[in-house]
């Protein structure tokens, strides 16, 4: 109340003040001689012109400077939106060198091209069968919006990545996965069907059994087959919105692998490792595993009364880019060590709401700004199980020796083989490392690529911003088939991204 009355007072003073000002100027003007009057008038006109020109529409209204989650690269693109099929078809007919874009949560340049077609306004739910748990929606719907609808009605996404702020289109195009990959596979494994607008403007439906070639090329196909329009998904039933979680302290890499194997029956598992630990301690960290909690497992009466509706949580924000010195070797080492030491020695069991378990990072909006305005990238690679230990050892050692390129967080996960023509998943371990971008980093990552290649591993495209053509074509086994399929669909390569050109798919 007090605050409001203060604003009102402030405004009253402001208004009275400006009125007095206007009257004063008018009085002055009427009394002064012609010369001064002309002067004042000219100044006034200049001022008005300035205001007017600031209000002029830009010559090219669609031009926009954008970047994806890593804030690198930032590029000026023609940014288009659509709400209906006719508008989209016109865009597809008229544009060249375009790529669809969802919520820009990929890290690099997968969703960047000279022309960007945003799906964010194409975001309607089309049908929801709450008995069977089947939902159909347009591609611009966010996973967070789906969760808002389905969780209170007792359903959950079978696959969800570490952020819920991505679109259905983006989830399919990157064929995303989450903590359930080892059991539930990837996003596309739970698709019933989808529709795509391909390069000639026609709409094609595809699924695991219909137009399968298009389906397999589109899932994980990074938007290169066309614009995904809508999808039908099978959900999984839940009793509560909570997860029964166990967090286990891990002392070294062997221990880590054992616990992952031991946790294979758990629906969800993921580990964080201290990427700066060396020698005997390499691979230390902690592993989290979880199951959807049943009502009688809930911790409090409050939770049991309303098991599908957890309490709303506070949102934090990083309001601006941090200066680049914030994250340096010392702060990062301290942070990693603290995370490890802080964890109690045995298993910590708890009941947490699904946001806490799946999306801890989403509570801090714009956290990518802590890397400063030069941005960051995530180096996520996977190695076959049998060589994971050795390969990761070499990579982490190489990083430690560099002393210059220090990853901030490192996330480890066990995978199973994935479908599609550009599958990231193989039976093995993946490690994701976040690096602030600085001069020399990309050359350094080229060196790491050699190690990954040597062990038969590969990099995750949706996180990549710098992999070269050789690395890509040598590490992904079905590249040729993928490229042929894309070319058959879209002869002139209307759909392309900076990434697809760089890794040689569309160039």
């Amino acid at each position, binding site marked *: 109340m007090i605050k409001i009355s203060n604003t009102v007072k402030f*405004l009253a003073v*402001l*208004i009275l003040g*400006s*009125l007095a000002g*206007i009257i004063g100027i*008018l009085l002055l003007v009427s009394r002064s001689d012609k010369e001064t009057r002309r002067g004042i008038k000219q100044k006034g006109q200049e001022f008005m012109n300035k205001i007017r020109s600031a*209000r*002029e*529409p830009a010559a090219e*209204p669609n031009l926009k400077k954008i970047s994806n989650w890593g804030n690198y690269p930032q590029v000026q693109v023609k940014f288009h939106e659509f709400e209906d099929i006719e508008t989209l078809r016109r865009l597809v007919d008229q544009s060249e060198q375009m790529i669809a874009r969802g919520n820009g949560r990929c890290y690099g340049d997968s969703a960047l091209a000279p022309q960007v077609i945003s799906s964010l306004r194409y975001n*309607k*739910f*089309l*049908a*929801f069968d709450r008995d069977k748990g089947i939902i159909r929606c347009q591609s611009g719907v966010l996973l967070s*919006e789906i969760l*808002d*609808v389905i969780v209170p009605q007792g359903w959950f996404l079978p696959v969800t990545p570490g952020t819920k702020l991505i679109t259905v289109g983006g989830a399919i195009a990157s064929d995303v996965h989450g903590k359930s990959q080892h059991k539930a596979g990837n996003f596309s494994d739970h698709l019933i069907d989808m529709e795509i607008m391909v390069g000639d403007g026609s709409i094609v439906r595809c699924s695991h059994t219909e137009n399968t070639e298009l389906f397999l090329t589109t899932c994980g196909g990074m938007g290169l087959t066309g614009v995904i329009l809508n999808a039908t998904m099978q959900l999984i039933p839940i009793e509560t919105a909570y997860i029964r979680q166990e967090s286990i302290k891990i002392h070294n890499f062997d221990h880590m692998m054992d616990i992952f194997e031991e946790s294979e029956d758990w629906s969800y598992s993921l580990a964080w490792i201290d990427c700066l630990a060396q020698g005997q301690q390499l691979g230390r960290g902690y592993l989290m595993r979880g199951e959807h909690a049943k009502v009688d497992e809930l911790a409090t009466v409050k939770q049991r009364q309303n098991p599908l509706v957890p309490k709303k949580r506070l949102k934090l924000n990083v309001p601006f880019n941090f200066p680049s010195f914030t994250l340096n070797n010392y702060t990062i080492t301290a942070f990693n060590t603290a995370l490890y030491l802080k964890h109690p020695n045995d298993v910590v069991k708890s009941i947490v709401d699904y946001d806490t378990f799946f999306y801890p990072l989403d509570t801090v909006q714009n956290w990518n700004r802590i890397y400063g305005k030069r941005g960051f990238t995530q180096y996520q690679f996977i190695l076959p199980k049998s060589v994971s230990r050795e390969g990761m050892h070499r990579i982490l050692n190489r990083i430690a020796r560099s002393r210059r390129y220090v990853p901030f967080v490192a996330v480890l996960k066990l995978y199973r083989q994935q479908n599609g023509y550009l599958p990231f998943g193989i039976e093995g371990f993946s490690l994701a490392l976040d690096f602030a971008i600085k001069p020399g980093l990309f050359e350094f990552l080229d060196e790491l690529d050699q190690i990954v290649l040597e062990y038969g591993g590969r990099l995750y495209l949706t996180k990549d911003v710098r992999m070269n053509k050789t690395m890509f074509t040598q590490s992904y086994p079905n590249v040729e088939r993928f490229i042929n399929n894309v070319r058959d669909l879209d002869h002139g390569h209307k759909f392309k991204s900076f990434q697809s050109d760089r890794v040689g798919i569309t160039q």
Partner: protein
Amino acid sequence: MKDVLILGAASDIAKAVAYKFAGEGCNVVLAARNAARLTETATDIKIRHQVEATTAEFDALDFAGHAAFYEAIKPKPDVVVLVFGYLGDQKKAQIDFAEAEQIIDTNYTGAVSILNIVANEFERRRAGTIIGISSVAGDRGRGSNYIYGSAKAALTAYLSGLRNRLAKSNVQVITVKPGFVRTKMTQGLPLPGPVTAKPAQVADDVFKAYRKRTDQVYSLWMWRYLMLIIRNIPEPIFKKMSL
């Protein structure tokens, strides 16, 4: 569960209002010309908010059809939000009366025609809320859009009279005066950022006014003070300004 009837539901502001009320647990009827194009919107609202959402054919200029239109709405609404409007082309309206007529008839005559019917029914029931979207343009005539402005001024006056009449009958009448809003109506116009609202902000203001039973509200709030200044500029000065 309240039932809300939205008139001119294809407008960007109207859609935002529909989602807002549905999000607060109200059923909505989306009434517009060519209502079939709103079927997907209605389905989306139903799934997102687990409320009823239907569409109805409505033309503000079909005065003769308004009684039958309102008769067919079942159940009878608790809230009617009038959003339709027509900015038109001022220059054209100065030389072509048909354009002036469409501006006046859409913003004013059509509103009177349908709201008379709604008001009588609400008065009989001694319940209900009527929300009319007028405009700051109605607060003072300006050279660049006074035909639209005068029609909105008439709507504002109509709503205030209606409020006065229905106060005795427990019927709430709310006048909403948006400033600049980024919508289809203003597409391509250079609008000054800080005082330009998104449709969702207007919808929030509308809902807040409904919940608090406010009589008149500007959206965004600073328009109240901007218009205070603009209304108080003396006419001899005002007439020389290019606005």
